[in-house]
């Protein structure tokens, strides 16, 4: 709805159309990505790393046993039935990456390393890069619900929703009623006039801005206005309460994916009671955290598989990425907790993933083994699985050239279908 301001001359309020969708409904072949981030540092020995027999490793103090589930060597427990169920149901579409190096033990640095491949603030996150590759064709390239966000050069691709439905509240106008000072809400027709006017001013400014930063600034504002116009139609799909389960949050994202409105999404999962993963004390809480995570994951995958995608189910179009910024020390400390650990695991599921593949493994010192990226097998002549390797793999899955962002990228082709 980019009306020139001159076109407003002589128009009445009723003469302007109400909001309509401005963007193509579906990107068809564009693969979608759902990142589920477990902040605080998960303990792989509760699910991914059956390290019984390795000296100095304190395995879960419950009924856990080593088991092969869905083709993966895992840690199984009666207290975490959802883990078993999830791998049984979806293992054929999952790849497990073991022993990822995250060379720090500080949360904020590890988050940056995991999501950008660098300890410096010099690169956008993988999710931002993938989303921005969709260009201006989507109203919501990256839906940020919660969790880490590293956006530098492509910040305009990020749509922050707010964990408590703030974006929906803004779009629906509910927010205007939440003011201690009385506010008169303009009628829909007048709001449409206002938005048309603002959009035309932003477009004028963008065309007059020339080149360089000022032009980027102006273009971003014009694009944001266009996207806002389109999203006003979608406000009812964005409702969140702040009490939503992982599955419910996933359903909101799935709806946006299905409608072709978004390409990427980021959700943080902090455990069933928000107790988080940073278990310096009471490490046993990792158990219910993983149970809640996989219960939600199973629901999300079920939901995605039941929705329509470009050529099959939406799961055939969507890659789900489970991450945490670090692992946990193999040993329990004096408080039955575990400190930070610079090696971790990640799980990839869904579109583009060669199922049943495990990449890498663990040394006797509980660091990651070097691997052959084409097979995933541990080998002394292989490469360390760094977060740049993981990032290159994700970018390759997204049909984004990793070489644009990473020097000498080495995707794990072993996990690519």
């Amino acid at each position, binding site marked *: 709805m980019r009306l020139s301001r*001159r076109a407003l*001359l002589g*128009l*009445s*309020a009723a003469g302007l159309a109400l909001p309509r969708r401005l963007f193509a409904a579906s990107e068809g072949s564009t693969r979608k990505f759902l990142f589920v981030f477990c902040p605080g540092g998960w303990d792989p020995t509760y699910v991914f790393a059956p390290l019984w027999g390795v*000296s100095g490793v304190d395995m879960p103090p419950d009924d856990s046993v080593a088991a092969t589930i869905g083709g993966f060597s895992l840690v199984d427990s009666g207290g975490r039935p959802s883990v078993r169920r999830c791998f049984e149901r979806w293992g054929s579409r999952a790849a497990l990456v073991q022993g990822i190096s995250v*060379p*720090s*033990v500080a949360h904020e*640095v590890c*988050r940056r390393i995991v999501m950008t491949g660098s*300890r410096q*603030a010099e690169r956008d996150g993988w999710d931002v890069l993938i989303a921005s590759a969709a260009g201006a064709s989507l*109203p919501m390239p990256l839906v940020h619900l*919660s*969790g*880490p*966000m590293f*956006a530098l050069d492509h910040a*305009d691709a*990020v*749509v*922050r*929703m*707010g964990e408590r439905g*703030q*974006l929906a509240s*803004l779009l629906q106008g509910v*927010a*205007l009623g939440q*003011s*201690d*000072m*009385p506010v*008169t*809400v*303009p009628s829909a*027709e007048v709001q449409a006039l*206002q938005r048309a*006017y*603002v959009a035309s001013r932003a477009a004028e*400014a963008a065309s007059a801005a020339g080149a*360089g*930063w*000022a032009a980027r*600034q102006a273009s*971003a*504002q014009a694009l944001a206005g266009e*996207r*806002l116009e389109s*999203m006003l139609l979608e406000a009812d799909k964005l409702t969140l309460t702040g009490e939503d389960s992982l599955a419910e949050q996933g359903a909101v994202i799935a709806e946006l994916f299905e409608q072709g409105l978004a390409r990427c999404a980021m959700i*943080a999962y902090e455990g069933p009671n928000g107790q988080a993963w940073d278990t310096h004390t009471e490490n046993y809480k990792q158990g219910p955290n993983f149970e809640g995570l996989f219960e939600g994951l199973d629901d999300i995958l079920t939901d995605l598989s039941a929705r329509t995608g470009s050529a099959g189910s939406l799961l055939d179009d969507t890659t789900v990425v489970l991450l945490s910024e670090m692992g946990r*020390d*193999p040993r329990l*400390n004096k408080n039955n*907790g575990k400190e930070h650990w*610079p090696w971790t695991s990640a799980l990839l599921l869904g579109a583009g993933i060669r199922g049943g593949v495990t990449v890498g493994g663990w040394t006797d*010192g*509980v*660091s990651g083994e070097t691997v052959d990226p084409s097979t995933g097998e541990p080998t002394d002549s292989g490469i360390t699985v760094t977060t740049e390797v993981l990032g290159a793999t994700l970018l390759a899955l997204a049909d984004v050239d990793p070489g644009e962002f990473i020097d000498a990228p080495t995707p794990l082709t072993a996990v690519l279908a």
Partner: protein
Amino acid sequence: MATHDRPWTESVTADYTVANDTLVQVFHVTPIEGEPTDAAGWVRSRYTDGRPPGGIVMTSGFWWRYDTTVGNRNRSRAAALSRLLLCQDMLDRPVVFGDIDLTDEDSTELAVLTEDTCVSCHSALDPIAASLFGFWWYDNKDDTEVSTYHPEREQLGAEYLSVEPAWFGLPLDGPVELGWRISEDDRFVRCAVQGAAQAFLRRDVETEERALVDGLQESFLAADLRYTGLVRAVVSSEEYRAGGLTEAATEATADRVRTRRLLSVDQLASTVEDLTGFRWTWERYDQLDNALVGYSVLGGGVDGEYVLRPAPVQTVSSAAVVMRVAQAAASTVVAHDLAAAEGERRLLPAGDLLVPGEGTDAALSALHARILGAPPGDDDLQAERALWQAVFDAEGAESAWSSLVAVLLQDPDFLTY
């Protein structure tokens, strides 16, 4: 320090803290007898639990924000001091774990004292950490424990960390000297200058901009380390002022200098309040200063945990925030001004504004100039008149003026500076 025009060094050396009614109830503080309470309710106070003076470094709130764990032994707090007050982020340094057996606790503790790759940070970090054990809590869920300074635990640092307290090689005769050592460190002033420059320029200050920082530092010193002097120097600099970017500047320079800056969410809040009197609070919570339930993150701000950099350009989320803030502020100020007696209007110009007439264009022109800081061009005025008339025809004068204010508050020339 800035509001009361105190020397910046007092932030780490002051023998007082400041408290309001709430904090007096939370902390062990008592207002200093005879000290006045300022307009915002703050009064100089002193702790009563035996802690040494040291400005923010000796406040409980600071160490609640920067907590530590049993195994970390205050090292993360020491790193926070270095990062925040010296701009020396030890976590930026590459970490090589090499052949250290991280699964062996004794080996790890020894490594921080003997291994080159560890010692490079820990030789500075651990002695600072050792000075912070008055804030060592045995139970961080115990309110009394975490709100109280523990002088008797000061000696634990040397015991737990096997080093004596020191500030980058300079011995500390207890935590009482910590603030003074910080204030005497050349990097402390330099860091304050860098921080101010980055905050006002709204970008990173690059290494090659040493001359800029040097100049600002001279001004800061000449102002006896009063922050107002530093701010004056920053906003007077060529890099801050748009005119500082000459036509001869290369595109790369123009891109880096970014003289066109987006209003931050707090700038948006205060600017809108200044113009219209509207502050968006809901049940007394400032909606633009609240990341959890409010809109500060959606508006482009940070949450200090997951979102650490403000959005440099407008996004669809911030566009939605701006739209609602503009509508709410417009509604509030127009309702006020149209009901106010002549001379008591806050934003709208004087005169009869309820019916269109010869004075309408002049009023529109005055309103434009007031909000955007420059008179409108002919095209601007025509467009604004068209919008005003369209809304007036539909809903009358109040809605027409509200719409004008709302769109001007969303104008690219208002949102950037």
